[in-house]
């Protein structure tokens, strides 16, 4: 447990509505990540952050934006949700362990877009 929480844990929304998912960490780690998990695809990186206000795109960033105004919070926003964004979303942090940065994952958020 690396002190990572995600909220909400489940959400059902309608196409076209904005949605914001929150990732909160308690250990002051620099790197944070958002992944989505879909059957047949494993986990795919959406966006990541390497510090406050420092973010970059991952491989599936279209339709998503992120913000990090505080070290402990990393927000993922779907400006106008679509059915293709129905997925399980995982937040992760990177913690230095024995010379390597190991990733620890939050519990996930299941998002359904109707």
């Amino acid at each position: 447990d690396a002190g990572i929480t995600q909220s909400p844990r489940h959400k059902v929304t309608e196409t076209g509505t904005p949605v914001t998912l929150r990732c909160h960490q308690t250990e002051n780690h620099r790197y944070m990540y958002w992944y989505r998990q879909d059957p047949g695809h494993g986990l795919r990186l959406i966006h990541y952050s390497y510090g406050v206000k420092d973010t970059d795109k991952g491989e599936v960033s279209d339709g998503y934006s992120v913000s990090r105004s505080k070290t402990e919070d990393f927000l993922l926003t779907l400006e106008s949700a679509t059915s293709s964004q129905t997925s399980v979303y995982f937040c992760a942090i990177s913690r230095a362990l024995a010379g390597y940065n190991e990733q620890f994952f939050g519990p996930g958020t299941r998002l359904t877009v109707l």
Partner: protein
Amino acid sequence: AQTVTQSQPEMSVQEAETVTLSCTYDTSESDYYLFWYKQPPSRQMILVIRQEAYKQQNATENRFSVNFQKAAKSFSLKISDSQLGDAAMYFCAYAGGETSGSRLTFGEGTQLTVNP
């Protein structure tokens, strides 16, 4: 870009037997790390084992071991003395060196069933 491929969507094993899960990857980097993650029905992602590319010795963690073939870009996971609690989805993952920001690239996953 790096890719990770798991060609076995499903595998099954009898309790107490040994099973091997396959993973291949493609990269042009020389410095990287490989991982196996386990995801039980709870959805929690759990790191099983890690291999540094510069190490020739295969990593081992209790009943879990890897066969790392760098030239072939192959990274298989062997589970010995399988237990019912090993039943889960297993993901192979790749991370580049220090400049990559530890971003992970995952394979598609292998669903492991353990039969009593």
